[in-house]
């Protein structure tokens, strides 16, 4: 609430300086974008550290401990190291493609945050097609992975890129269908309105039996696949493809992929929170705290998955999506539609 207020105050201040409306918009949105960028950079750094800590504690290790309290500075130090590293481009690489791939990944990962409501009124732009926009933007990630795979001119990278394309395309479908069932109920594509439609805890879509939990699980599975994490981390399956699409990347370009991956994971969790867990809604605490808590809880679940499960094989991955998730999500959509139509459980 307070942060949104500050932003509004800035906007009004700018408007009162006599600049034209276009300039006011440009400046204020740039500031908003920068704030979101900075926030996400911090979040990504935190998530990297957190993941390392969680994995370490699951495995009864310490994880990073040296830099700062329990190694909280570790990712920053890593970042500094990666910046200093030599940026290697393979001699036979397709240079422009190779060069642009991490940037596309980076930008696509950040663009999604335009329509994610971090709190009540805390949103860069409440598009009326919000969720559609996010789905469209996050899908950009595949293009970057394909570009990386192709541009590296490496067989492992190519295999990784191809895998990721196939994987993301196949998991997009059940994911969208799961989201659609929520949209059907909310009656809007706008993220803010979706959140507002679940004001009470029993209105959260995850609790709307029977379709809610199923849609949530489908979303979670597909989201794990979308963000290329175990058990669906085939594009970069270390034991098969060494590092998959980013096998040839080093230095800052690698860091950009790395960042994009963690930002994507946060995106998946944030969308999950918005759609199923009531977004920023919650008692006592400020709205953005609730949002962060829920999102981080989902992120934790994703990490927990990663450090517990083995990896699927590529054909099994496809089979799982097309033969299992897709029919289930269709059925779920039908149930949701029927529920909406019959006003059954329509609280």
């Amino acid at each position, binding site marked *: 609430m307070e942060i949104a207020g500050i932003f509004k105050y800035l906007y009004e201040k700018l408007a009162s300086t006599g600049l034209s409306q276009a300039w006011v918009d440009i400046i204020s949105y740039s500031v908003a974008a920068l704030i979101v960028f900075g926030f996400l950079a911090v979040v990504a750094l935190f998530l990297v550290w957190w993941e390392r800590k969680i994995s370490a504690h699951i495995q009864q290790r310490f994880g990073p401990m040296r830099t700062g309290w329990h190694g909280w500075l570790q990712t920053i130090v890593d970042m500094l190291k990666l910046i200093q590293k030599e940026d290697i481009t393979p001699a036979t690489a397709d240079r422009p493609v190779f060069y642009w791939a991490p940037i596309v990944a980076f930008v696509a990962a950040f663009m999604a945050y335009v329509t994610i409501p971090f709190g009540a009124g805390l949103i860069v732009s409440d598009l009326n097609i919000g969720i559609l926009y996010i789905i469209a933007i996050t899908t950009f990630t595949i293009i970057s992975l394909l570009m990386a795979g192709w541009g590296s001119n490496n067989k492992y990278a190519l*295999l990784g890129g191809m895998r990721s394309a196939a994987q993301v395309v196949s998991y997009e479908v059940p994911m969208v269908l799961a989201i659609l069932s929520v949209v059907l109920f909310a009656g809007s594509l706008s993220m803010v309105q979706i959140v507002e439609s679940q004001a009470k805890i029993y209105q959260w879509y995850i609790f709307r039996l029977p379709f809610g939990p199923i849609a949530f699980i489908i979303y979670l599975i597909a989201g794990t696949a979308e963000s290329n994490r175990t058990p669906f981390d085939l594009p970069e*399956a270390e*034991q098969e493809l*060494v590092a998959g699409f980013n096998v040839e990347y080093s230095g800052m370009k690698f860091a950009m992929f790395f960042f994009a991956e963690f930002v994507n994971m946060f995106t998946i969790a944030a969308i999950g929170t918005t759609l199923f867990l009531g977004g920023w809604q919650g008692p006592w605490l400020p709205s953005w705290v609730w949002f962060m808590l829920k999102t981080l809880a989902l992120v934790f679940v994703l990490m927990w998955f990663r*450090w517990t499960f083995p*990896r699927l094989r*590529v*054909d099994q991955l496809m089979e799982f999506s097309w033969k299992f998730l897709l029919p289930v999500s269709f059925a779920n959509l039908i149930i949701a539609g029927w529920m909406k139509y019959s006003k059954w459980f329509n609280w």
Partner: protein
Amino acid sequence: MSAPFRTEEFLVNMGPHHPSTHGVCRFLLTMDGEVVVKAVPYIGYLHRALERICENRTYHQCLPVLDRFEYCTSMSCEYAFCLATEKLAGIQAPERAEYLRVIMLELNRIASHLIWYGTTSLDLGAVTPFLYGFREREDILDLFEMTCGQRLTYNYIRIGGVSRDIPPEFIPKLKEFIEKFPRKVDDYEKLLTENPIWIVRNKNVGILSKELALGYGVSGPALRASGVKFDLRRDDPYSLYDRFEFDIPTGTVGDCYDRYLVRMEEMRQSLRIVKQALEQLPAGDIKTKLPPNFKPPKGEVYSRIENSRGEMGIYIQSAGDSKKPLRVKMRGGSYNQLQVMPEIVKGGKIADLVAVMASMDIIMPEVDR
């Protein structure tokens, strides 16, 4: 109809430095997309000429070399060599020494299987089991270090006995380990055995038929998983293995999952043997005194033991007038298991190749020597 969809096969060099080749092994894969059409293993990247080195060392000096033959189960390498030499020279180790050997061998088998468990799960994408496996392995290595002073290259089992008696704190610590290890194995099993992802990754992958296994000389858990109930500890007993009760787990299909189950069960059985050996452990001498100039008489022997990776055989030929062996040939289980791999990975995915390689428990130094 349009023209048929045309694909092109391409070559992928998997290795020598690849995360899942367990050492440095190179597979030249002919791939049709994700499908392996042909896999040709290339070995020799870890070739250290151990056999030649042994020919240039005295029998005692061979033992540290043997430690490096197959470093996951150094004890059994040493033991195989000592057994061969003892057979050659007609020496019998004291009973206490034999019991200590059995304890060490079985503990080392568990340690080796734990490495296998860890690396296999790692190869199939699960990272956490890897560290759980290594956690318990550390306990075993602590026991070894306490006894012989090293964690990996023990140089403990000697010709005619063992180098040192166990320290007093060994037995309580071993008992503690025996106490807790079954629970840990349960934990391992909880993580993987029934996990649906694990099952689909391993079931019916890399099926090794009985005939193929025997023809290619595949031995050990891989052979048993194919349904051949053959364990040298029971079928060609060496040391004191005929005094212990243990089961020989076998599989039915011979796929990766069977190999997994067989090895998991073997850990439990090994622990059973350790327990029995500890109960029966007699007091007494730990070493047969060897003549100062130890020269085995002229002769040759091929002696084999059951290693965690299969039949470990040492062929020694002695000229009779030298302190150095004329010829030492080491035969490890991995050698034949790697050899059979091209046959069973054909037509599978590249991920299956990784799964098969992991489940065969191939360790490259044993192949290359």
